[in-house]
């Protein structure tokens, strides 16, 4: 009996370097590089019928809302034509993009699988993954990772996932590991969506393919000031003009609310009352102090929290609606308060 190969769109957004020598055809920097790159990975056509789309080929650290919206837009437009999407992405910022796609693409009927090469192209700056895991194969390990990730893109899952090494992560929970770790990624609640052993294996809590209408909400507001409150933080006065002229929101992280000096709370409250929403993030707030006027973001990774705030801010400026969006579990990003979390 014939089996039908699935049709998969491959989106190039960095993270494509196949070999440390970075020879012509090893990296996709521009649309003209795609064919040569695909010729090096011809075996992917055994798994699926592939159609390429170019999104971005520059520095990974520069990927942001513009590229997120481009990727989501491509997926939204092409969703009916393909059985899955395979996004190659620079691994430095992949966790942010995975979270962004998770919020923008809801009711996914097919998989969106993300991965990338740990090899830095010639013009790149740093190594993010230990050579011990991938290094024993060098380019073979990188290519094997791509083949494994493509196999996930033809599987029965219908979520935004990140595949790296032997693990499959939910896109809204993936975090980056410390530099030099064997796996570049981990899951915020330490629970993975699935693993790759002799094939793909999913655990019970995943969304399956289904006949659903994809809902694309591609608006983002990237004009968010990020503030990490540490002891001894000086006055926020120098930030006043930035907040007044540019910021559409302020995202604040602190060890505890009680670790934020009163003068800092007062400054943040004045911004919030002037219409610049201030969101406080912590893993979990045992209670949300009523005297503080801010928005609260909790029960998700710091990456997902920041990206979700930017996405929610893109949907609305109304504080009540913002809080409602931040509180709802939009893309499986919520973890229980007692769950172990990646540091």
């Amino acid at each position, binding site marked *: *009996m*014939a*089996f039908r*190969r*699935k049709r998969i769109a491959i989106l190039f957004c960095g993270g494509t370097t196949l070999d440390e020598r970075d020879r012509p055809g090893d990296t996709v920097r521009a649309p003209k590089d795609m064919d040569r790159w695909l010729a090096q*990975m*011809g*075996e*992917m*056509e*055994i*798994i699926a019928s592939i159609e390429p789309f170019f999104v971005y080929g520059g520095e990974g650290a520069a990927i942001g809302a513009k590229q997120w919206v481009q990727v989501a837009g491509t997926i939204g437009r092409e969703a009916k034509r393909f059985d899955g999407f395979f996004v190659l992405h620079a691994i430095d910022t992949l966790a942010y993009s995975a979270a962004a796609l998770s919020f923008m693409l809801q009711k996914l009927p097919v998989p969106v699988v993300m991965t990338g090469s740990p090899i830095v192209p010639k013009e790149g700056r740093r190594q993010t993954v230990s050579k*011990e*895991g991938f290094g*024993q*194969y060098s380019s*073979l390990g990188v*290519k*094997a990772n*791509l*083949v*494994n990730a493509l*196999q996930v893109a*033809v599987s029965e899952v219908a979520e935004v996932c990140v595949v*790296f*090494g*032997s*693990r499959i992560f939910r896109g809204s929970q993936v975090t980056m590991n410390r530099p030099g770790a*064997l*796996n570049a990624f981990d899951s915020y609640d330490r629970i993975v969506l699935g*693993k*790759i*052993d*002799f*094939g793909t294996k999913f655990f019970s809590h995943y969304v399956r393919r289904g006949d659903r209408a994809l809902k694309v909400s591609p608006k983002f507001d990237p004009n968010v000031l990020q503030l990490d409150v540490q002891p001894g933080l000086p006055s926020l006065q120098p930030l006043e003009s930035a907040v007044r002229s540019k910021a559409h929101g302020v995202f604040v992280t602190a060890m505890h609310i009680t670790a934020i000096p009163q003068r800092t709370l007062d400054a943040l409250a004045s911004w919030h009352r002037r219409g610049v929403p201030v969101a406080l993030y912590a893993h979990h707030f045992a209670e949300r102090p009523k005297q503080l006027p801010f928005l609260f973001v909790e029960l998700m990774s710091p990456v997902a929290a920041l990206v979700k705030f930017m996405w929610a801010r893109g949907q609305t400026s109304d504080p009540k609606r913002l809080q409602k969006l931040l509180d709802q579990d939009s893309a499986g990003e919520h973890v229980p308060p007692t769950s172990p979390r990646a540091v």
Partner: protein
Amino acid sequence: MKVYFYGPVTNRRDLEDDYDSIRKVLKRADVWLSSNTERQEVDLPAEERERAEALEQPLLETMDAIVVNGTHSDQQAGYLVAFAITTKKPTLFLYQRGTVPDLFRHLTAKAVPKWVRVVAYTDQNLERQVEAFLAGAAGVAVKEVPRIKFTLRITRSIERYLAFRTQNTKLTKADWLRQQIERLMRDDDQWRKFDGGKE
């Protein structure tokens, strides 16, 4: 030697018989066999599984060779062939003579590298084909697989020595000890005279 054998799920009696024949040859050859055709959970030595997990390696990457019966091709069979091509893993792709696996629509003869052997088999030659692959067509030496469990109590200083000798290597302490014993066996003239090549 560790071999992974894959046969797509089938209700065809003749294919199941072929799977049996392949498994028989692999077990006779004393390779460590992992297969989807026997039971749900695929068997692997605990040490191998732990090492693979520590190195974030999919288990398939730890196999020395792959055998696929692709007469009735499915997605997984295609994945295994693609994986074998990418990782240069010695692979035997078998199909019943007279059939044309679907996989061939997406795989030209030119695209098949030398480490992937594609073989049309008959009832008469199936076992020989698998034996030939194991013996040398894969270019992989057949090694004995440690199967006998042996508990050895050691002193703290021996344990520290083993840790010292295996740190920053890919060897477990048990691997290192086996290597030392195999070396002693090779150099032991009395043993070689006594053993005289018998098992």
